[in-house]
């Protein structure tokens, strides 16, 4: 496989995943900002901070939902906005049309310009349906990959890119929570903190799944455990790390060259494994999350190096 093809597949998967994750992040911000008293807490500001998009804010004072819609949904110059993620995913796909199935291409090509023509007012009014639309597009794409694509090297790069981006977004969602309110070590029975924690679960479509694993009580460390350490929840960091490990293993078997990536992945894996039973939380959630993010970034550049991107 051409290195450029691998790179395009890797990034295509990342951008699709990022579009969906950003949609989920906005959903979470929306829920948090609706809570009483949130005017003082700058939820939207923390959403911008964790996505690295503060620079796009064009006024002083706390960010508003309208800012978020402009910056994270529509802004064509922001590489993290949903609009540019969809455009870039399609551009990546277009460069490697022959490595895609017809259905994958159609999933990316269908109405890819919808956001281009969307005004700020319309997007603000129809925010929830638009975010749902983004998630549906991502699901369609994954469905097409799942049911039609050969389980070959291209598939490995898609899964690695998707896993990487998803792990990073789960980590970022936890960061928003950190910025909004420092976690309490108490059992959360109700009130603002409870809603914030459950907003994180909700944004990741994990509220029901959480109950199946931990029963009916929400505690910050169990929620953290679920999102970081759990091996069965597909949006947990550990799950994503396992997924990348499996596919990097297949690449290493066929092409070699992945020693450093796999070492980094091992480091990440060990860090997470040692963090069970609330240990991550005790060590400092913010520090743990930062450490994981740094390792995933390193991993991304090591993958590019190993396969000559």
């Amino acid at each position, binding site marked *: 496989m*051409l290195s450029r093809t691998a790179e395009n597949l890797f990034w295509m998967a990342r951008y699709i995943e990022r579009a969906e994750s950003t949609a989920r992040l906005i959903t979470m911000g929306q829920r948090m900002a609706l809570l009483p008293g949130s005017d003082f807490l700058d939820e939207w500001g923390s959403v911008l901070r964790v996505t690295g998009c503060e620079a796009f804010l064009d006024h002083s004072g706390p960010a508003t939902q309208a800012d978020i819609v402009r910056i994270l949904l529509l802004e064509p110059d922001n590489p993290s906005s949903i609009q540019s993620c969809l455009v870039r995913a399609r551009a990546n796909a277009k460069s490697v049309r022959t490595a895609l199935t017809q259905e994958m291409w159609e999933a990316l090509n*269908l109405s890819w310009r919808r956001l281009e023509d969307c005004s700020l007012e319309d997007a603000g009014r129809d925010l929830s349906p638009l975010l749902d639309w983004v998630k549906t597009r991502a699901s369609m794409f994954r469905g097409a990959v799942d049911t039609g694509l050969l389980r070959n090297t291209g598939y490995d790069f898609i899964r690695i890119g998707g896993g990487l981006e998803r792990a990073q977004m789960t980590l970022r969602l936890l960061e928003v929570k950190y910025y909004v309110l420092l976690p309490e070590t108490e059992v959360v029975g109700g009130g603002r903190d409870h809603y914030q924690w459950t907003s994180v679960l909700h944004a990741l479509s994990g509220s029901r799944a959480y109950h199946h694993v931990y029963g009916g009580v929400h505690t910050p460390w169990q929620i953290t455990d679920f999102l970081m350490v759990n091996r069965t929840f597909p949006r947990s960091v550990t799950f994503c790390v396992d997924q990348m490990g499996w596919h990097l293993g297949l690449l290493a078997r066929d*092409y070699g*060259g992945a020693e450093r990536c796999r070492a980094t992945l091992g480091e990440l894996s060990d860090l997470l494994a040692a963090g069970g039973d609330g240990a991550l939380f005790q060590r400092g959630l913010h520090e743990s999350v930062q450490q994981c993010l740094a390792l995933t970034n390193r991993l991304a550049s090591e993958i590019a190096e190993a396969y*000559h991107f």
Partner: protein
Amino acid sequence: MAFYELHDPQGAVRECYAEVQRWIQATGIAGLRHRSAEAEAIFRRIGITFAVYGEGGDPERLIPFDLLPRVFSRLEWQRLDRGIRQRAQALNAFLFDVYHRGEILRAGLIPPELVYQNEAFRPEMLGFDPPGRVYSHIVGIDIVRTGPDTFEVLEDNCRTPSGVSYMLENREIMTRMFPELFSHGLVTPVDTYPAQLLQSMKEVAPPGCKGDPVVVVLTPGPLNSAYYEHSFLADLMGIELVEPADLFVDRDRVWMKTIAGPRAVDVIYRRIDDEYLDPLAFRPDSMLGVPGLFHAYRAGGVTLCSAPGAGIADDKAIYVHVPDMIRFYLGEAPILGNIPTWQCGKPEDRAYVLAHLGELVAKETHGSGGYGMLIGPRASPAAIDAYAHRILADPGGFIAQPTLELSTVPTLGAEGVVRRHADFRPYCLVGSEMRLVAGGLTRVALTEGSLVVNSSQGGGVKDTWVLRD
């Protein structure tokens, strides 16, 4: 009155159109229009688009597809087939000749300056024998019909003629939407084209190639207007679609960068112009090319399809001499005629052209795609005057031809089935033997009376049927 291909001189439906006519009547105009919208939706979803340079607007617009097929009878095709092969063979013989001894120039049939001072001529190619002595591996010949029995060649395309993906996709859409039309086996299939193309390119692998040749399609990238076609062909042949940055040259061989390291490439079907192939050999300011590619080619490490410099054979100033080439190299009479052409570089021709510009079609010799041409009968006096000044400024850069009565074909229009002018481009493959799929691309001018069929100027495309007996 232009020849209408649906009817014979008595106004009855010609036999080869019987099936199409039956189908039009059975489906009805409303039904056809409905299915036409459906076809467009399929094209857009698949992503067959065509960008137009220098026009701005939608870079991914569709070429309009007209549902009504254009039909050739078996007999008509037999003649076209022989004429096309003959022309492709003569053009390749001409290319070999001008890059070697130049016999045809010595014989006084073509003025040497027309060749040696031509921008498309590549002195770097002199004395080099490309594998199989093939220069133009895909020859696209634009043919117009001016009467029941007259087919004439409008121009030749020896570099990298585009549009073959439309030939394949148009048929694919038609068989998908109207399987009943094809169930009797009346229409010759065209879907063998990709396999034949691959076979032809493998046959011209360089002498040093051992085993099964590795063939790739080289594209400038997704922003190119024909990118869809590049990826489509690579896909159907099951070979890699590479960009220049994917290739590098080492020890006179070309390598592509893969995740497992470098892999040797034997044959490159390049869809990049000569100038941009290799900054070391051609344009030094090209950001596109592969440094050292031309050297590797001359050293026999790789084959380029088409050969650099193949464009000299399809230059509009050379075009007038193709019938001479056929007689000179093959000793045969040309089966397909040329259109009478005045060369503005010749004083007597120029005087005629300037006096009759209002009746003629004038073109730039190096232009393509319908750009920079003047259709006298439809141009304003001011436009004609401006064009005359352009000709005077650079006479050798222009030719002129009579305004032809291009045949019309049945086309779905607002008022039902209407007559529209059309041309035809078949694709002749040249490897160690010649191959020609029975079919090609029919382009149709969708505006009433218009003679410009180029997709860049609002033309559309049609499925083209060659009937079996």
